[in-house]
């Protein structure tokens, strides 16, 4: 047993971080955010994706990371994907990264859009037709308790980046499939998204055109985990932002980082981030649904609570549009609603407690 990263995994993470710093620096994030900020009120979903960056991500293998080398993929596994998504989360890279990555994995099925997704030429967003998730707060979340009475098909769900997307990955109860975005868009209503970098549309649940039989559970699980990885990246980043600010800002003649109240906020943030890290990485190795549920819960908690504490450490500056803290918080809120809600994850884990023979620790 050696839970820590291998040298190659460390190098992958460093490489991703360098790419993010070069191709999506803070200025790029601010450009996206401020463009949307200016467009607020015009009824648009805003936030067009940077297609050239998307293609660059495709070129370095971000979407084809887990495809076999024989079909032009990188041939790595879920742990490596988690490290890459953690870095994307750290940089607050916008876009339906998870669903494009998952769509690329369907290329063996001959879906042409899957091949394009793998290369970063297609943008694929996602829609969870069970109504439980997929960027939605819709009622009817069922969890894994066996109660499958959700009437998802009629509930509205939220879909991210629909206007920029080429295709929509639709997850049904059991099956998954792809639909052209232009087919979904006409019946969708733009929502003024809380996160300026994640445009949202409200869409009626959609279960037609499901072709990939029996893949939905796996895709949903992977989607939840890769989303949790992004939450982890954001949670770790807000610790850094808080510590940096605490080491600079002076009040009462000394750095605020010398105040124990501030130190303790920062310490609690680190504990949350490291706790989340341990389960997210473990879930990437085991792919066990219980581990994924734990990863979802703790990563959501870490991202949301850390962003709040980071905002507090920033004082009035934290409440401004200029500080990046609100962007972490808003994205964390969006991601916390995606794929597996806290309620569903908790129910899943509770159900496992009474399952005899379920793996314990």
């Amino acid at each position, binding site marked *: *047993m*050696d*839970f*820590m*990263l*291998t040298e190659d*995994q460390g190098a992958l993470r460093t490489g991703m971080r360098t790419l993010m710093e070069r191709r999506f620096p803070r200025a790029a994030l601010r450009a996206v955010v401020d463009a949307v900020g200016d467009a607020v009120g015009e009824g648009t979903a805003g936030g067009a994706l940077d297609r050239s960056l998307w293609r660059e991500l495709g070129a370095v293998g971000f979407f084809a990371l887990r495809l076999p080398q024989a079909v032009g993929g990188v041939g790595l596994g879920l*742990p490596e994907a988690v490290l890459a998504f953690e870095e994307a989360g750290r940089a607050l890279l916008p876009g339906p990264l998870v669903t494009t990555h998952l769509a690329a994995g369907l290329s063996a099925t001959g879906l042409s859009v899957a091949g394009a997704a793998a290369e970063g030429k297609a943008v694929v967003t996602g829609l969870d037709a069970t109504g439980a998730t997929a960027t939605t707060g819709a009622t009817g979340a069922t969890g894994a308790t066996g109660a499958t009475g959700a009437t998802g098909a009629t509930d509205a769900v939220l879909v991210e980046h629909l206007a920029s997307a080429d295709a929509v990955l639709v997850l049904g109860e059991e099956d998954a499939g792809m639909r052209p975005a232009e087919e979904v868009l006409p019946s969708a209503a733009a929502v003024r998204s809380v996160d300026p970098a994640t445009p949202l549309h409200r869409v009626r649940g959609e279960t037609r055109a499901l072709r990939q039989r029996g893949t939905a559970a796996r895709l949903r699980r992977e989607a939840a985990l890769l989303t949790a990885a992004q939450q982890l990246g954001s949670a770790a980043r807000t*610790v850094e932002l808080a*510590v940096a600010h*605490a*080491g600079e800002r002076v009040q009462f003649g000394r*750095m605020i*980082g*010398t*105040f*124990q109240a*501030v*130190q*303790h906020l*920062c*310490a*609690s943030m*680190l*504990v949350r981030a*490291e*706790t*989340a*890290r*341990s*389960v997210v*990485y*473990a879930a*990437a*190795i*085991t792919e066990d649904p*219980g*581990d994924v*549920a*734990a990863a979802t*819960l*703790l990563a959501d908690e870490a991202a949301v609570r850390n962003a709040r504490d980071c905002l507090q450490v920033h004082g009035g500056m934290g409440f401004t549009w200029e500080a990046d803290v609100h962007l972490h918080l808003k994205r964390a809120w969006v991601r916390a609603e995606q794929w597996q809600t806290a*309620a569903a*994850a*908790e*129910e*899943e*884990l*509770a*159900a*496992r*407690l*009474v399952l005899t023979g379920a793996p*314990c*620790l």
Partner: protein
Amino acid sequence: MDLSCTEDEEDFRHRLRAWLAAVLPTLPPRPDPADWPGRRAYDCGWQRMLHDAGYAGLHWPEEAGGQGATPTQHLIFLEETERAGAPYVGANFVGLLHAGPTIAAEGTAAQRARWLPPILRGDEVWCQGFSEPEAGSDLAALRTRAVREGDTYVVSGSKIWTSHAEVADWCELLVRTAPVNQDTPKHRGISWLALPMDAPGVTVRPLRTLAGTAEFAEVFLDEVRVPVSHRVGAENDGWRVTMVTLSFERGTAFVGEVVACRRVLESLARTAKTNGRWDDPVLRRRLGRLAADCAALWRLTQWNVSEAQRTGGVPGVGGSVFKLRFSQVRQELYDAAAEVLGPDALDAEHEWVTGRLSSLSYTIAAGTTQIQRNIVAERILGLPKGR
């Protein structure tokens, strides 16, 4: 990132499992928690069985009488013994997890030969005399004085919260060997001594805990004579020696308890199913969240053990991250137990109620939550030193 065990490790696990299955049914009934002599005898009997089977001091270096096992094997050992419901290390806690490793790391050959074998055999029990009435969190402010007279230290002062002092043979004692002044800041003048608890001048007065039992004690030291040869490490270097000790305490001391938490949680769920509380979604979700917390504690443990394995044994500051989360989760777990129990949560004899009471100490003992946060902020995050 690899969580799998090697064939050797799996072999080790299976042999251990088989051994546990054979010996556990032969154990005498557990003594009453308030009966310390009974607990000592029980815990030492178990330690002797471990010793005879080759499991004592598993991860200690061979030159210290241990088995030189890898951190992973040690983890498997703690996991399997807890899972099988084997006795807890109990009265041997300080000796095995604390004083022993410190003597192994910092003691002379003669000191190792004198003190380590009886710890491993379960013949001698140790306690920890660090805290004092005026020096708890601020450990370096301790005042118990040791004045040197030739080959002897004459020790006077008092210690407090000393767990199971009544039944201990030895005490790892921190004393002041140099007065505090401009040249000697408070943590420079401290030394680490092995105090025989039966020495003339040692008085132990048990203190009653909030659980109603005597778990710890006050220890009064009145001109107690301790040979200089009982000092581990150099004179006035006891603080550094202590830091070695504390890193052991925070690193691996709670591994078995994480497994225990998960076991308690599973039985909470089973009980809730039978008494109808399971139908309450709020409670159910709360138990689900606790399952995530237990999983995380286990993964953090594996992370820390992997780190220790890579860095060669001494656990790092990462133990503070674990301790902060663990102490909080443990208390939340027993609060949830009280919800499952309903009115039975007021029955002080119920196992979970005793567990709830003892969980209250976890945010205090071995460094309070606040002190741990200071450590994380200053030593891990590198924030400027607070005042």
